[in-house]
């Protein structure tokens, strides 16, 4: 049995990923997230400030890790984001990502299919197409594949962050400490 290095991002960031920021940025921050997870929502409040602080030195990548047993709407939320991306591009994916976190706590049903379709339309996608994709679980395999890359990378809950491929065990809840961790990473 080979020695196992736990908590290493596999596969590395590639063409399939949703990426914000320059491709040649020295620091790559990957989040495995769940749109119905309250901790991910909290991270969503911290991340823009952290990314702003780092500027072009960082690129941010989001991968899906919906915890279906804990969060009944999380898988469809992730599928909706993929449907939006497929139809309307990466900018629309990020708008959808932001909308779902911004509205996560509005009500108990704020991430049900009806709401997801509404956010998708606002993000720039065709509502009927997204509704069909959700009904047919078109993007379920994509989400499952993303989830399994997380499992194989040592994701241990949501959110889990990787900085230049190594699982980040530090504090992401404060802008100061999170930005400092990213600034200190050897590149």
């Amino acid at each position, binding site marked *: 049995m080979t020695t196992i290095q736990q908590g290493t991002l596999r596969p590395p960031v590639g063409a399939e990923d949703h990426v914000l920021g320059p491709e040649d940025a020295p620091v790559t921050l990957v989040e495995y997230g769940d749109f119905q997870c309250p901790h991910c929502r909290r991270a969503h409040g911290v991340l823009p400030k952290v990314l702003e602080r780092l500027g072009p030195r960082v690129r941010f990548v989001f991968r899906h890790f919906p915890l279906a047993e804990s969060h009944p709407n999380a898988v469809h939320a992730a599928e909706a984001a993929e449907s939006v991306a497929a139809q309307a591009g990466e900018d629309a994916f990020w708008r959808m990502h932001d909308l779902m976190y911004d509205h996560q706590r509005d009500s108990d049903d704020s991430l049900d299919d009806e709401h997801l379709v509404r956010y998708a339309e606002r993000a720039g996608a065709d509502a009927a197409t997204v509704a069909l994709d959700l009904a047919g679980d078109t993007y379920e395999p994509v989400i499952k594949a993303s989830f399994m890359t997380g499992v194989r990378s040592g994701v241990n809950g949501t959110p889990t962050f990787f900085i230049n491929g190594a*699982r980040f065990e530090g504090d992401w809840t404060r802008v100061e400490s999170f930005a400092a961790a990213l600034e200190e990473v050897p590149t």
Partner: protein
Amino acid sequence: MSDASTILKAGTPAPDFSLPVTPDQRVSLSEFRGRPVILAFYPADWSPVCGDQLALYNEILSEFHKHHAELLGISVDSAWCHGAYAAQRKLHFPLLSDFEPKGEVARRYGAYREREGTAARALFVIDGEGIIRWSYLSPTGVNPGADGILEALESLDAGAHAGSPGGAA
């Protein structure tokens, strides 16, 4: 990790045990002979980090089952406590109660923390013959994820056997 040497290593026969899984039912390790067993020792029901860890394993039970592996959680909590916890978190795998004598099984696996009076966060993958094939002690407060478990199960499937170096620490 200085104390990683305390837990039982790959190649060691897994000590058998019989522990309550509900207030009136017991489970023995030897019952699972013939297929892999994942033992996940954890400090306590209800503590947030364990919750994440067990919730993650709960999500990927189907991956463990692909390897015909059985997952058993073990802590020093009572069977009543486990019952309430498993129901609330909708856990679909058994939680064993190392309650009386307290922590005895954890001690036999080198996975007991005297000062805290709880099990450590230790993982063991045991093959169908009852031999430990991989073990891992996670630093306190760090949720170990499932990547190591899956790699260990794949190595078992691939027929990696005795004498091979195991362990991640």
